[in-house]
């Protein structure tokens, strides 16, 4: 029985981790679609998840503020002034990590 319950726990843990990954993928996909459709107007553009959007000239200061408004709307976040930093917003990876952190802070 012990072995069986261990397996159940593992299954539950795996399912939770799968759900978490699926939710993260969903966030990542939404962010990617927003940048491709709303910022790049659907022009085909190779968009590396780790690449700097500022260096590539995809986000300028107005674009950054549009992105901030999108994040607040789409994910129910409050983006404070001190959050508007390249570390949080300069790539799809960074944006996704920021959404996760900001979401957790909001739940606390």
């Amino acid at each position, binding site marked *: 029985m012990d072995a069986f319950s261990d397996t159940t726990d593992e299954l539950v843990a795996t399912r939770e981790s799968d759900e978490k990954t699926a939710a993260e993928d969903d966030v990542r996909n939404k962010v990617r679609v927003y940048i491709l459709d709303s910022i790049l107007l659907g022009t085909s553009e190779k968009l590396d998840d780790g690449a700097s959007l500022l260096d590539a*000239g995809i986000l300028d200061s107005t674009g950054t503020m549009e992105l901030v408004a999108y994040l607040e709307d789409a994910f129910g976040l409050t983006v404070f002034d001190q959050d508007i930093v390249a570390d949080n917003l300069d790539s799809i990876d960074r944006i996704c990590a920021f959404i996760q952190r900001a979401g957790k802070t909001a739940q606390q």
Partner: protein
Amino acid sequence: MTVLYAVSRDARTKPFGPHVLDIDYGAEERRIETFLSQSVARGLNRRGVVVGVSGGIDSSVCVALATRALGASRVFALLMPEKEGSDDAMERAKRLCERLGVTYAIEDIGPTLAASGAYARRDAAIRQMLPDFGPGWRHKIVISGMFDRARIPHFHLVAEAPDGIRHTMRMPTDIYLQVVAATNYKQRIRKMTEYYHAERLNYAVIGTPNKLEYDLGFFVRGGDGLADVKPIAHLYKSQVYAMAAHLGVPEEIRRQPPSTDTYTLPQSQEEFYFALPYPQADLLLYAMNNGVPAESIAPALGLDLEQVATARADFAAKKKAAHRILRDAILITDSEVGAESPQADAVQ
């Protein structure tokens, strides 16, 4: 090793600092005057120049140089106040024109601004953030987040109620864009007025940006960015002040701090755009244009290396924006539509 910024003997012996901007103002004045008369007469085939004179340092230097280059009778100055501008600046502009002996006209652009809805559209945008905003309130836009960790610049509205209470709020993008777009009517209507007089007189229009403004895009497309000849676009702001002293521009103009005179609360250019006082901004831009390393820039500007990196990135982004504001419309014959700066790249 090549010292790229060695413009004088001093530059090799002294550490990088404001002295790199030292030039011979007598020689520079003659060079600009020759350039002005030749480009107006031969390059543009016009008989004189129109200059919008604001009472600020740049337009004062331009009108003084034009008067020396072409003679007072070939310079037509335009003073274009509106109800939100500084009365003192207009008085200074008037006194300068009288002193130079140039003909000037006063064109109040307020009624045109009102008829075009400039004030109403701007106020409507602000009321989305501040429902009480209206007559008696004053406001300005300030840039935030430049030197505070790697913050991305963004804009705050500062609004002062008639009772003196100030509100400072981050501007949502759509409101920021509408406020700027509505406010830009001021620069565009001034430019339309300058061209009316220029065409009537067969004159050219002088654009008054200095190098800091020109390189970093501190002007409005179709507004103050539009002109036939820009005689001080190669002079850093500190050099414009020094040229003003050399030309004998009255001290009442030279001692005024640079202001946008665009919003109803007093607003310096650095709080709206450059994020650095102009002596520092000049040096940073000079350093970027001349390959001066960050290690030499930091002590001269009183910044640490991280702040220099942030400021350089910001200026680099502004340079890109400047190119977009100035460039001609993109044609289908341009080989690379996505290219930021095909001509500039070719020159470099």
